[in-house]
């Protein structure tokens, strides 16, 4: 469902970009029609047409750029949070994780390490295992969305490397996490 949602978003962006491209084309076509039919004008027309083609090419690039931009924006999220003693990926993490998956799928030489972490509550070894399973949970999600197993490595630091040092809910919620770290892009 989440995947479809993203495809829809990207689709819409793509469509909008295409529409923009079409619109500029028709603008040009209209302008063309308004030009008087003489040599200079023809020249202009040819120039305009050339520009039009260029404009189309530029528009084409815009399409990719928009999709890339959307992906890049989603990929800015590299830390994904979890509930206490839980390895379920949260709904609001999924679009970003799909963007990472698609990037990995499109860039076969890209490699990531998934660092799993837990908050300090509970035991050291249970938390190490919990961090491991959070990493595996994200790994499976990335693979289900196109990344290859060979691109992903998971490592758990359990409760040993907290993001925040506080002993309260705010810190704990920031410490229960998986961090995606790119080793190569």
């Amino acid at each position, binding site marked *: 469902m989440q995947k479809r949602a993203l495809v829809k978003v990207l689709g819409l962006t793509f469509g909008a970009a295409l529409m923009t491209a079409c619109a500029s084309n028709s603008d040009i076509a209209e302008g063309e029609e308004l030009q008087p039919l003489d040599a200079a004008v023809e020249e202009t027309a040819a120039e305009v047409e050339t520009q039009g083609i260029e404009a189309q090419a530029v528009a084409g690039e815009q399409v990719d750029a928009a999709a890339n931009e959307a992906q890049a924006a989603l990929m800015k999220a590299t830390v994904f949070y979890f509930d206490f*003693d839980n390895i379920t990926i949260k709904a609001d993490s999924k679009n970003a994780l799909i963007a990472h998956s698609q990037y990995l799928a499109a860039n076969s030489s890209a490699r990531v390490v998934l660092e799993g972490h837990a908050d*300090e*509550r*509970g*035991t*050291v*070894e*249970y938390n*190490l*295992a*919990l961090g*491991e*399973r959070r990493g*595996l949970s994200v790994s499976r999600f990335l693979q289900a969305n196109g990344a290859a197993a060979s691109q992903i490595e*998971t*490592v*758990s*630091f*359990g409760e*040993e*490397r*907290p993001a925040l*040092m*506080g*002993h309260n809910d705010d810190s704990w919620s920031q410490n229960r996490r998986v961090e995606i770290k790119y080793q190569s892009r």
Partner: protein
Amino acid sequence: MKLVFKIVLLSLLALQARAELVIEITQGNQRAIPMAVVPFKWKGLEALPENVAQIVANDLGRSGYFNSLSKTEMLSLPNTEEEVFYRDWELLRQDYLVIGEIESDARGGFIINFKLIDVNTRTVLMNQKLTGGASALRDIAHFMSDRIFAALTGVPGAFSTKLVYVTTNRDRTQFNLSYADADGAREQNIFTSKQPIISPAWSNDGKKIAYASFENGRSEIFIQEIASGKREKIASFKGSNSAPAFSPDGTKMAMVLSRNGNPDVYVMDLATRKLDRITTHYGIDTEPQWMPDGKSLIFTSSRIGKPQIYQVSLIHRKPKRITFEGDYNARARITPDGRKMVMVHRNGGDFHIATQNMKTGILQILTTDTQLDESPSVAPNGSMVVYAASMGDRSILAAVSLDGEVKFRLPSKYGDVREPAWSPLLK
């Protein structure tokens, strides 16, 4: 009624200026037997490096079995049987008296003669001569405490034992595996790293420590010889390698590996390095511990969704759940007699240390005044549990007796102290 008193043992502090940990007794046992350890007579000229009688008094007082009389309350300071006025000690309602003398021997070592006296029957229960090298005064003192404790309680003393634990600075850029006396004195770092160190575990002969170190970017298991400092990498399979536990006979090691994806319990034959996979569940299986007979393991599993303790026979291989009270039971340790299990327990609220009777299943929560209690480790005589807890914004070591009556803390002067492991009885 529990007698609650807070004493910072200033004299102890003075004695162990180099030590990081300072004991604070936070709860004593009202049923503790009153006894007096009289300052020993020193026949030499130069000041002794250690106050032997004070170390013995502290040891016995901290055990919870005894209440040591402070020197300032003593009416007389006898060193020999002839100098004992029994009426003084009867007046002070003391049941036992320890007196002694220290002299140096020809090689620069020490000879201590001490007597344990029953005040009520006016009889000498113990009359012993202990000897040791120049640097061994503290060892002699702990050994004397062990002898007295065993004579009066029938339980071997654990005062000559050691602790290993992990210390870190606030920024977690420096991790030390520290080694100290059971009272926190004489601390030394036996391994240091910029990466985390977790789960130190003793071999049953007390000569080696196994632990997981992240020095190569992920957890791997190492065994380190205490005397030589020699280290050997035991497990560095793909994924995490952690939670080492030596078998009672020392030939095998239980451990947790995630080489197949999910963390599972394995047993490695230390001679052949052959692995035997014990659990195969898709949940978390971790924190294996050997039962004293070496025939089964107890471990933590999340197979029902929340962590609970399970026992698995190494023959039948069918894990059986053994904890049912609470929504979080983990990191179980077994008392040396195999009768009780000590673990991290939570029932909706805070994390505390609890014991569970292995036969009846009856659970008792031992700690109430510390937060985020974890990493319990049982003294080799089954008298106390040392554990890590949160105090203010720090992680400290604390200890509680198996009956929950006696509590003390070992706060560090800096940074966090975590993951204590109490040594076996050392010969």
